[in-house]
């Protein structure tokens, strides 16, 4: 069970890093694009990158809420 939790955390960190960089690069590429949908895409890509950071921090045990088991 402990090994599974370690594997899940490692997977989350690895995946989180990839998602963060993909979102950041996509955001940089779309930065100059215009149009209402592209403005929303930029906002959402930024939040996606933030979500990836939060996922990494949660997997590292840096951020853990009160209702969460150790």
């Amino acid at each position, binding site marked *: 069970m402990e090994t599974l939790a370690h594997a899940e*955390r490692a997977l989350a960190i690895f995946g989180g890093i990839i998602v963060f960089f993909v979102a950041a690069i996509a955001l940089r590429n779309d930065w100059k694009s215009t149009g209402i949908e592209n403005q929303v895409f930029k906002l959402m890509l930024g939040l*996606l990158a933030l*979500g990836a950071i939060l996922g990494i921090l*949660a997997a590292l045990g840096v951020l853990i809420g009160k*209702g969460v088991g150790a």
Partner: protein
Amino acid sequence: MTAASVTQAGFVGRHAEEPDQLYRETRELRIQGFLLFMVSDLVLFSSFIFAYLYLRNSGQGWPGPGAPKLDIALAAVNSIVLFGSGATMHFALENWKHSNFTKFANWIVLTIILGAGFLTGQVLEYVHIGASWSSGIFGASFYTLTGMHGFHVFCGIIYLTVLLLQALQGKYTFCKYTGLTLGTLYWHFVDVIWVVLFSIFYLL
């Protein structure tokens, strides 16, 4: 008819049709209408989220006795799977914009698979924590919000599947693809809602 022949036939058709005047004039309006729908959905989620935060801060000793203990490792993996699906959906739309139908189809299929993976992880979590809807305010809020979000993901999977089938049938061209843009917006919206839910349930 094979997928390859559909793809080749559609490829020619997709390049042939230029956006007409009516399409150009109504495109922005359709996107704005869809954004209004997303805002209404955001209000729905916000009302539940603020109700949860209010209840959480009005009581003593949160999360209270008998509240389920959530699995942070499983939730982190599940979150990354969903966020990853947002990235793959972005790639799908970008490939459509660059007239690459095969890559578009591959990325959208991967998005659907990741979305289904997220739902599977959510079910695993429900089984793992062994709590019910009646496990106090925490349990009720958790199941209501994550269940509502899960339903949106389920609808999103159906939505993306329909978009893929429509694209295979040649309903969209490389110049006229508002439906695909709206599908991508919806999927990003579902991702962003999960960023908030993940934060309030697992990180606060």
